[in-house]
């Protein structure tokens, strides 16, 4: 059985459209999105229509909670004044351009979900199993901590997003965490494509339910899309030039201060 997981859409409806098509070409049976539908990009209502049309099962991110409940900020968890300034510009734009019905839809999304496919239990969340806006960076998340986070869910596989960078690790206790990446913006690697994740679960999983990842295969998939059209529309909507630059260069220009040094070193800024 094949499942596709999207993370952080950030209003990038062009990448979402490309990812849904790509997943269908690869015979994906179920589509999931782990939240943060809005932010950063233009026309936030468009991704919501696409998600509903394609029957993507959605988890609520911190952004969706904020927009759905019309909170004063995005709860992104940034600590730097410049990052917070850009986050606020993006948030104010997204809030004022999300229609009432879509706000209600975002508001009612579940904050997590547990599914079982072919005997493999999976826990879906946005940041971490314990907190929607917790950053789980690859280089600052110990094995022991992952085990502690995953254990209460009883799952063998936990999937999240929120940081913008995809990664996966199997702990010594044979539990696996997957950060499925984001479709909203590139992975700070100088390439313009964005990422989603395929999970294949073998028909009869070898491991006992909830334990281990036997029979599970995880693949990160790059998605090409019309990024020039997106950056043009961002400029047309008056969104910051820094955002358009990230879309066109593949390098982050904002939200850098929360990166651990290891992830930060891989970038340009």
């Amino acid at each position, binding site marked *: 059985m094949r499942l596709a997981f999207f993370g952080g859409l950030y209003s990038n409806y062009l990448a979402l459209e490309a990812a849904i098509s790509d997943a269908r070409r690869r015979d994906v049976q179920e589509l999931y999105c782990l939240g943060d539908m809005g932010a950063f990009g233009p026309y936030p209502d468009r991704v919501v229509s696409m998600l509903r049309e394609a029957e993507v099962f959605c988890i609520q991110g911190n952004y969706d909670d904020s927009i759905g409940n019309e909170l004063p900020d995005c709860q992104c968890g940034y600590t730097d004044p410049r990052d*917070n300034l850009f986050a606020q510009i993006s948030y104010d734009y997204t809030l004022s351009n999300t229609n009432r019905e879509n706000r209600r839809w975002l508001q009612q999304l579940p904050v997590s979900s547990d599914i079982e496919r072919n005997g493999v239990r999976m826990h879906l969340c946005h940041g971490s199993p314990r907190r929607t806006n917790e950053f789980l960076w690859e280089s600052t998340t110990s094995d022991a901590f992952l085990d502690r986070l995953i254990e209460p869910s009883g799952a063998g596989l936990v999937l999240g997003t929120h940081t913008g960078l995809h990664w996966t690790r199997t702990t010594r206790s044979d539990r696996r965490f997957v950060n499925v990446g984001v479709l909203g913006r590139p992975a700070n690697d100088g390439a313009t494509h964005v990422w989603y994740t395929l999970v294949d679960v073998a028909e009869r999983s070898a491991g006992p339910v909830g334990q281990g990842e036997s029979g599970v295969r995880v693949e990160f998939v790059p998605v090409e899309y019309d990024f020039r059209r997106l950056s043009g529309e961002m400029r047309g909507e008056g969104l910051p030039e820094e955002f358009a630059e990230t879309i066109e260069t593949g390098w982050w220009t904002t939200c850098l201060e929360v990166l651990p040094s290891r992830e930060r070193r891989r970038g340009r800024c």
Partner: protein
Amino acid sequence: MAEAGRVELSGLDELWFQVAGTLCNLTCTHCFISCSPHNDSFGFLSLESVEEALTESVARGVREYYFTGGEPFLNPELVPMLELALGYGPATVLTNATVLKDEWLERLRAAEERGPYSLEFRVSIDGPDAATNDPIRGTGTFDRAMRGVELLVGHGVLPIITMTRTWPDGEDQRVLGRFREVLATHGCDRPRLKVLPRLLIGAEAERTCGYGETDRVSAQMMHGYDSDQLICSHSRTVTDRGVFVCPILLDEPSARLGATLEEADRSFVLQHGACVTCYQYGAICTNPSGQAFEQMVGRIEGPVGDGAGEGVR
């Protein structure tokens, strides 16, 4: 006086090692635990005791480790300690960068590259020039710290520069801007800056007026407050004199919670003036990447005037 607030340990996310005790090569006038070359009220931790705590920390699901002092690099076993810790999880060392050596940094960068985890260097510099920094940290310390920054950058480290706010509240942006310019001239063109509020205890209490008797976190103030903001809800500090609630309150007997991590797994009463500063600013000790809580800046009204100004975490 109103009943004091109480914080449970929700889980051990960060484990701190008071690895150099209160021994430091500098004698900063604002040091909240009065570290100096002569203050041996807390001594060095041994490699053996660090290893023991690291092993114990795995069962508790610790996310990351912090090494502090005093000046951690005074402990001759610090490098092997950090090499060891990186086998368990991410580590951060808080240094004044005035005693760093090439060979240590070479070993530490190699240890970081061998595994999946980050090694962060947090460098304390209290102003963008000697005129601001040296009166607090000592004559010549600005130039020595800048040489330390150059050494770190030369080894591919992106240091986090922390500064205690000793300037007027409204001048943060000017000071940070100047810091960026100055650090760039020392090769540090991607500075990660963190402003810390002053803690009015230790040497700082002698320098200024300290906290008033009413500067306390009451039980009522904890209603609706996200206690994850307080490191005492998710951290403990290992010292050579037992396990303390946090790295700030070492001079407070009630902050020693036991001899072992297990004994220290209990609630803490926020009965100290410094608790108010943590309450107000939130997670002042952890790195930005390790923080996860509601965005409180601008939402919390200061419960008391501590003179520290608007919130920057």
